[in-house]
């Protein structure tokens, strides 16, 4: 086929049923995956498949505390999990935090585990370091910090944040 024909090539046949189904199935997947974030997703910080590459939420930081036993001793997550998972927990990804909690329940059977997750809602609005997030929660207004999980219940019993 000559070069110019690429420009003027016209489709002469009609779409077969099989091709039509394939096109619309793929199209559905392409649209449903990002739409799911806005319609059905209950975790705003889980932005996978939503094409939110440089979104404001991406730069929000969260503090996740795993509190063990009645004394509520804070566990050091990095002793059980790779720092990459701890990093995802710091982004407030609830699916990951829930899985981490489940693992800790297995690791410390017969002990209560409370999970407290606090996230910035306006990153940079308070000029303190991430390490001071919990202190900041006391100082900052409610608008600046969101309590995603209050850590009131034993996670090992409820299985939910």
């Amino acid at each position, binding site marked *: 086929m000559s*070069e110019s024909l*690429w*420009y003027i*090539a*016209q*489709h*002469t*046949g*009609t*779409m*077969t049923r099989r*091709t039509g189904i*394939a*096109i619309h199935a*793929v*199209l559905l997947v*392409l*649209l449903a995956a*990002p739409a799911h974030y*806005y319609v059905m997703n209950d975790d705003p910080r889980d*932005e*996978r*498949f*939503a*094409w*939110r*590459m*440089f*979104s*404001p939420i*991406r*730069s929000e930081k969260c503090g996740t505390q795993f509190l063990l036993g009645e004394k509520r001793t804070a566990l050091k997550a*990095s*002793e*059980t*999990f*790779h*720092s*990459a*998972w701890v990093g*995802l927990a710091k982004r407030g*990804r609830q*699916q*990951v935090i829930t*899985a*981490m909690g489940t*693992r800790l329940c297995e690791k410390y059977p017969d002990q209560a585990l409370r999970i407290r997750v606090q996230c910035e809602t*306006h*990153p*940079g609005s308070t000029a303190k370091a991430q390490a001071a997030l919990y202190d900041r929660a006391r100082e900052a207004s409610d608008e600046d910090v969101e309590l995603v999980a209050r850590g009131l219940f034993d996670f090992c019993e409820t299985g939910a944040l």
Partner: protein
Amino acid sequence: MSAKNTYEEFWLGLRVSDEKLKLFRFAFFFVFALDAWLQIGNAPRYGFGDFNVSHFPFLDGILPTPSRVFMSVVFGAQSLLGLRIALGGARRATYVALALLFAVGYFISQLNSYQHHYLLALALALLAAFPWPDLCSRDAEAEENAERFWPTRMLLVALSVMYLFAVVAKLDSEWLDGSTMQRQITDGWIRDLIVDIGWGTAAKLTIVAELLLAGLIHVRKLWPLAIAIGVGMHMTFEFSGLRIGLFSYFMATLYLLLLPESWVSAVHKALSLPRSGIKKLRERVRISRSVGIGIFATTTTLGALLTQSIFLDSINMLTWCVILFAVADAALTRNPASAGIKALVACIGLWAFVHTTDGLRTYYHFWGHNDRRNNDTASAIVHYENVVGIDPTYASGHSRLAASYLRAGRKQDALRQYEAGLLHNPKNFKLNRGAAQLYNQFGQGPEALAAAKRALEARPRDQVSNQIRQHWEQSLGTNAQN
């Protein structure tokens, strides 16, 4: 033309020349192979503590828990297959195998949550159904069958969906006033440029560009404009210091599909001399079946040996992948000589990646990091020794190895590491402070003082370095200002 015809024309009427498809294939799969190899550095993150969360809960019961070795083989195999496809002539089964292998490597764990890898998973699935010239030309009916072009359009539609949802994500007051962009772009000349035009203006321009691109990429006459805006925008992202891997380069390769055919023809003509030479050579040299098998055996063995030279603990499995892929390729193409030569070229490409990227260095660094967290000092020492063996100029590798030696009570070895690191990084803070502490302990005053002073040049308020400096200035009777 009725609405139905227009709709069908939209999906089936996007014809792309064979030359352009070949150019796109080479560029895209080459960048893919490089990206896959770089992912090998992340393999040690998998399997730590036998903990994993896949992208979809149902996958946890189907796919194995990924381990470091498994993922390094998956990434290495992806890289090999990517290179093989870039060379052309691969069968459709190879494209399908790569799409599946990539899907496994991506969806198996949320450790890989890069959006551009999700885009790649979609793109590879579509590319497995692409109208590649060397796959469709055998089928006489396919030449006239416009239906084979729908995956090409779908790839562009996938880009439009991405751009449109990226715009939706930016319809937020913090993005619109530029504060989100200001937090993300923290360094470099792009930041200076944006400061000049204003953060809010730059943020709004990004939205306008993405909106335009979502539509322009479907209007053939406006493709040059789409290329200018799209490649320009993605290269701006690339040079803005955002940690987005090879995303910008992938996007640039996708824009090759929009190149005007006249431009592609010009490139094609420029390459006509070497291509005709290769064609003539092929016509003159008739390879018998037995010679073909001999070439296959020789080149595949050379490729396997070259792969064996790669300093990776899972290299034996990767070498078996080289052999397996070559045999499958020979069987599929029924051209063993070509399959063997292409396997060898793919291995040379992989070898080049090993020696031009920091994939392996990162691999051992992360592995040593895991050992350190597990308090396995002996193993950490082995892996940090690998890091400095691979890259003797890497400051962090030397300082981590020295710290591991110290944990094992090997102070002399630690000092030698600090000194080795300082040969290439004389101003590095950690190396200078570590060396100053050890010189101080060994009573080597002048050396301790010099190292402490160099550490203080980087961090003037460092307490440890200041104490060492003061101690030795008093002992040696020198002036702090000298």
